[in-house]
């Protein structure tokens, strides 16, 4: 069943038709895309920041690894020298 339209329905229906020609002002699409571009700049900045942090972490880990390797090789060298010295001493 179709309900009869009252004055309010008729008024809203008239305003619906009368506002159909509304449209965005000139340059609206470009303004939206500029806002999107502005959004993407911090994304790039964030990317660079994250990349820099990753590099720092890798560098720190490399430094720790190099120190450990250095200490181990130092110990190995000392032990070799000591054992050699002992052998020489034994031979002598």
């Amino acid at each position: 069943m179709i309900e009869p339209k009252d004055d309010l329905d008729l008024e809203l229906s008239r305003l619906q038709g009368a506002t159909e020609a509304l449209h965005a002002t000139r340059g609206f699409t470009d303004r939206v895309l500029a806002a999107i571009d502005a959004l993407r700049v911090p994304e790039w900045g964030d990317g660079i920041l994250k990349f820099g942090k990753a590099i720092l972490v890798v560098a720190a880990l490399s430094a720790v690894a190099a120190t450990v390797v250095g200490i181990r090789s130092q110990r190995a060298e000392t032990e070799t020298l000591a054992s050699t010295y002992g052998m020489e001493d034994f031979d002598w």
Partner: protein
Amino acid sequence: MEHLAEAVREIVSGDAKAFRKIVVATSPRLVRLAARIMGSVEDGEDVVQEAYVKAYRAIADGRFDGRSRLETWLYRIVTNTAIDALRSGTRRPRSTDTLPEPAWDGAAAAEARVALRELETLLTELPPDQRAAIVLKSVEGLSAAEIAEIMDTSEGAVEQRLVRARTALKQRNRNHD
């Protein structure tokens, strides 16, 4: 609207420029919707721009799952952004107050702006959610089920808002007679 689904895929894969296709295809209807809810084209544009920024972020982050159509999803974002803007009172001064009239863009558009002011006057005392509901129903021509999906609520809640809005508007008209 397959080209819009394709545009979404392009954005997800990093081509931000594909967003232009979405804006060009959807902005006429969205700006008209937002203008009708907000009561001015300028406020409507602000709302739609903010909604597009939210939509772009969601698409680029992969948060748009495609369960609802892109247009329905954008309708939802615009409507909720408009309701938030009405609640927070972040609206530009009306052109009759401090801003110059917009540039002449044709007789039809000028008449439409006059009608928009009439709509704004009619709906001015309604709370934002009732205002959005009556625009979606009586001006945009959507069903209660579609409005419920857009406003993320039940059909019953939509019907309740519509009844309250219509009662308030009829009371207002009686007071003006």
